[in-house]
């Protein structure tokens, strides 16, 4: 930690800032080569994300509450529904309360959408982008793909669809992870804790791992594929035990989406959290028709962390929240 008198200085070193600039240039070149158009959408919105685990920062515009985006997803899908074609965006997103070694309350997201791709073809695309960005810096090994279920089995010995919550608690105990009071019946939260404390640290350092087919209860905005059990067509990319990207085979069903918003709000109500205004313009766009597509959001700062070999997100930000 530097002394207080030193806190006007950038938190990242000049080499890392130069690397960021180089990567952004390469990234834009890659999208241009692939016919994906860059777009910009508002950072301030009258509506906000309903996900109970994501907290928007609220501000005012003419005394009207407005929310800083936690992701450009809703606006980008409105563009897609209006016929934009394949699009990408590099933007700042904001999340209240997220601060730590791998989290900064505002960070850079690279988000893009490709029509007619499913989750697996989108993973191919993420992998080829990784190779381009890593060239000459830190080349990731060929990626592996594993279902969420097999990941939990292989790295924690837990079957997330079958094992009881008591078995998950026992596994956390065995790993000396204290389980918070009142969590022992919350299956998804226990699996989240298991993933963050047992599975992630055991993942390989150099091999990108795509995890796919998440539990339907963790679908977010992905479509759910029927089966036994049904699974969400969602994937996450891990590199060095760190989550780098999240992708969806996008949900297009407006009734299903509206239902998920409602369930989110109910969970927020139950937890005593704020109830943000639902994005009705996004729902109207789904109603008008979102093209068949897949989308992915990549945490740019974390990618830079891995490429530069940094342990703390502050090391790759010009100024982290503590110096902002």
């Amino acid at each position, binding site marked *: 930690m530097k002394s207080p008198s030193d806190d006007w200085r950038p938190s990242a070193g000049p080499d890392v800032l130069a690397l960021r600039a180089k990567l952004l240039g390469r990234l834009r070149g890659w999208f241009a080569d692939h016919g994906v158009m860059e777009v910009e959408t508002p950072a301030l919105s009258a509506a906000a994300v309903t996900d109970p685990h994501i907290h928007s920062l609220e501000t005012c515009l003419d005394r009207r509450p407005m929310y800083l985006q936690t992701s450009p997803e809703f606006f980008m899908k409105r563009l897609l529904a209006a016929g934009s074609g394949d699009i990408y965006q590099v933007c700042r997103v904001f999340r209240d309360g997220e601060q730590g070694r791998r989290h900064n309350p505002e960070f850079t997201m690279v988000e893009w959408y490709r029509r007619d791709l499913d989750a697996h073809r989108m993973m191919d695309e993420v992998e080829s982008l990784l190779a381009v960005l890593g060239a000459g810096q830190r080349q990731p090994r060929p990626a592996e793909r594993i279902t969420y279920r097999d990941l939990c089995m292989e790295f924690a010995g837990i079957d997330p669809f079958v094992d009881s919550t008591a078995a998950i608690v026992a596994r956390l105990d065995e790993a000396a992870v204290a389980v918070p009071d009142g969590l022992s019946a919350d299956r998804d939260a226990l699996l989240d804790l298991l993933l963050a404390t047992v599975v992630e640290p055991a993942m390989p350092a150099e091999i990108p791992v795509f995890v796919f087919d998440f539990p339907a209860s*963790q679908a977010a905005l992905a479509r759910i594929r029927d089966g036994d059990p049904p699974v969400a067509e969602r994937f996450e990319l891990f590199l060095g035990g760190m989550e780098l990207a999240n992708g969806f085979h996008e949900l297009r069903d407006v009734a299903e989406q509206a239902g998920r918003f409602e369930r989110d709000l109910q969970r927020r109500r139950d937890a005593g959290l704020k109830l943000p205004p639902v994005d009705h313009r996004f729902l109207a766009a789904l109603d008008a028709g979102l093209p068949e597509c897949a989308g992915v959001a990549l945490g740019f700062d974390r990618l830079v962390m891995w490429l530069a070999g940094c342990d703390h997100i502050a090391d790759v930000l010009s100024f982290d929240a503590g110096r902002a």
Partner: protein
Amino acid sequence: MASYSTNEFRSGLKILIDKDPCVIVENEFVKPGKGQAFSRVRIRNLKTGRVVDKTFKSGDSVEAADVMDTDMQYLYSDGEFYHFMVPDTYEQHAADAVAVGEARQWLKEQDTCQVTLWNNTPLSVNPPNFVELKIVETDPGVRGDTAQGGVKPAKLETGAVVRVPLFVEEGEMIRVDTRSGEYVSRVKD
């Protein structure tokens, strides 16, 4: 009662866990993909000194512990309590043997100690890092034996026993590092 949200957690923060005052030693924020965020903390119980790991859901609140470190002068012991005084205010506090703990063997009247108060009652006492104490009992010194680096036990005026070089004599003042309990040097008048 004041409380802290997990978002305010940082090392050094004093919180109440199971009614005991504790200090946060380490704090790590973890959040998988789209899921529940947690604060994983390592805390030290200020009463027992035990270190334990705890996990909190992000956004949960924890009661603050009214714990304060204050520099005080050690006055005397009445056999049961150890009496300290805040130099600026002359305010006095009596610490029991549990609060004084290991510090007891280094306490010399007039020395300044760091006393940790919880709800205005002494919880623990930290002696100065270095104290100067008189040797009240040790074997006779051996002249010319300095090179061999031999040591012998020496009892100090506060009752502590430290290992000193063979040439150090009874009645001499020595400087001791209270963190390691080791002899540092002789003190020349």
